[in-house]
């Protein structure tokens, strides 16, 4: 993901490690070092140069939320960068049945590769299988299909890791404070990802016996719900040391409720990586001190992977001849110290 400096640095590290490992393996096992060498050098690797024309079908979510909107934008702008890529986009939908119909339309259009961010991964598994059977490789974006047969490659964020990193960051901030209290403003409780974020958070807090989670309320990922639920939480907890809020969109409302209540006595960590949250972290004038990324740039990477799939190429910087079967993004913690690095990926 060249758009994220850190990620590309990480990619570089990873790539270097992979290449070293590959080299080591080669050195140990190969009887034909020269041929291997040649393969590594000339492996067909996707790059920015125009190649075989690829039509990518994109079935995304209804962009009624900052992060989901950023997903669609990332996919579109990335596809525009490649002269050899044609993007067929369906109308985003949160309705499972409607989205199945849209994917089927794309299959009938015989696109070369499909990128699908399902409204519900489990519910769209069948249509993923259908596409794969029709010979169209599927890049499954973020919400994962129930069967690995339904996709060629999965790329997505790490919900558990978000919770884990948020918990560890808060833990480090409060590790010297006896009987520290934290509260959690979760997202939509009927989504599995919310449970995963909470699980990661709880697991991280186990590393810090001095910290206790005293309250958890779920909001709806909206500003309005964030404001309402946070106002209640503030009322219920007269004193606490840290707050983890799962989502920066609802965080706008949560920050509003905190300002309305005139509270400044704790630190807040957000989630997702909205630009408004990063701006607030940079300005350092509110309780918001960090946010845990769930980068929408994964949609751009999904287009990269789909293009590589369509052109039968591997991924640059890796010794593999094929693109990987799955890629989990890292949920970096953005703080005042590194916010400048991540600001370009912040979404509105």
């Amino acid at each position, binding site marked *: 993901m060249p758009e994220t400096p850190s990620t590309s640095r990480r990619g570089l590290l990873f790539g270097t490690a992979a290449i070293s490992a590959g080299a080591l393996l080669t050195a140990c096992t190969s009887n034909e070092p020269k041929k291997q060498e040649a393969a590594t050098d000339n492996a067909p690797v996707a790059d920015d140069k125009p190649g075989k024309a690829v039509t990518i079908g994109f079935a995304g979510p*209804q962009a009624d939320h900052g992060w989901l909107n950023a997903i669609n934008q990332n996919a579109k702008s990335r596809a525009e960068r490649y002269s050899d890529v044609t993007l067929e986009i369906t109308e985003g939908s949160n309705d499972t049945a409607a989205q199945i119909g849209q994917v089927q339309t794309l299959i009938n259009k015989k696109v070369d590769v499909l990128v699908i961010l399902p409204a519900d991964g489990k519910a769209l598994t069948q249509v993923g299988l259908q596409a794969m059977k029709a010979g169209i490789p599927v890049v499954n974006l973020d919400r994962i299909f129930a069967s690995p047969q339904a996709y060629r490659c999965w790329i997505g964020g790490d919900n558990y890791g978000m919770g884990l990193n948020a918990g560890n960051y808060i833990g480090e901030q409060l590790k010297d404070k006896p009987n520290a209290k934290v509260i959690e403003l979760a997202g939509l409780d009927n989504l599995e990802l919310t449970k995963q974020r909470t699980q990661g958070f709880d697991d991280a807090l186990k590393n810090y016996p001095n910290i206790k989670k005293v309250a958890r309320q779920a909001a709806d990922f909206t500003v309005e719900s964030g404001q309402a639920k946070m106002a209640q939480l503030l009322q219920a907890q007269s004193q606490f040391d840290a707050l983890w809020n799962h989502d920066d969109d609802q965080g706008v409302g949560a920050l*509003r409720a905190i300002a309305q209540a005139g509270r400044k006595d704790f630190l807040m960590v957000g989630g997702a990586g909205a630009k408004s949250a990063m701006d607030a972290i940079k300005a350092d004038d509110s309780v918001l001190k960090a946010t845990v990324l769930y980068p929408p740039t994964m949609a751009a990477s999904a287009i990269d992977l789909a293009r590589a799939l369509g052109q039968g190429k591997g991924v640059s910087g890796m010794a593999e001849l094929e693109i990987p079967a799955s890629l989990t993004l890292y949920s970096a913690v953005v703080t005042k110290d590194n916010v400048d690095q991540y600001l370009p990926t912040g979404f509105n």
Partner: protein
Amino acid sequence: MTQPATPAQQDAPMPAAKSAQDKGGSRRPLGLRLDVRNLSLLGVLAVLVAVGGITKPDEFLATSNLQLVLTQASVIGVVTVGMTFVITSGGIDLSVGAIVALASVWATTVATQEYGFTGILFTAVIVGVGCGLVNGLLIAYGRMVPFIATLAMLASARGLALQITDGKTQIVTVDSVLDLGIRDAYILGIPPLVLVFAAVTVIGWLVLNRTTFGRRTVAVGGNAEAARLAGIDVRRQRLYLYLLSGLCCGIAAFMLIVLAGSGQNTNGNLYELDAIAAAIIGGTLLSGGRGTIVGSVLGVLVFTTITNIFALNNLESAVQQIAKGAIIVAAVLVQHRTLRGGDA
């Protein structure tokens, strides 16, 4: 209105000239019945307050919490007042949540924010009234069923809100608007939004119970044909009612902007159901002909108090929803029992 028009009036013993007074007289039995309903709702509210006070004595009865409960009731409360009028007239407005969303995102566009406080307030109200006008015209003069017309408005207003925002959250940067929601702006300890809610409630009550407009609303809801024969312009009345509901949505949208500091296309989600539920629990007949503003406001307060108690006790959202459903059923059952007792 000088014509002795409503069905209720026909039973009135007094001459038509003293219409205001005799209407009060003829409606007294109805008023008493409503009071019984309201008393039972007050009872439910009292039980809830007791539960809150017992489970979380320090937090629940704190001034700041009472301010919070009232503030959170305010936005949906204003919508419910408008909804009560519409339901009393035998109609329904399914588009209130979508209108709140559209008004709030339109009022928070960058262009509107340049005009500051008045720009935002004015846009929100105008958009609300505009949507109400479309609803009203479709229903009154297009002869569409209210359910269908407002369902169409629900879909298109939400769509337009999504298009305007492009799914993004529009953050408000106008300080004078934001300041209305913070503690410094409280007047005698009362949040400004609560004062708006109170004002809308009082005006709503006066209009429904003490004006010709209110009597016409009840008459149209009771029997539209009889009302028409009695000389009421039923169509115009309906138009005004949906305009009124739209106006309330516009005001509520502004209040939401103050509260949440932003406009988002997901604003006002499920307000239609909350407002209808509050009005029905309050004793407004879904079939029309009877409406009570006080009951609706009590209904809203019951809902908000439940939510508050749940949050204070840190209940899980699944448990919250189950309990909320159970309490709605309980509240209505208690009401019916009380009513039957009162009638017997």
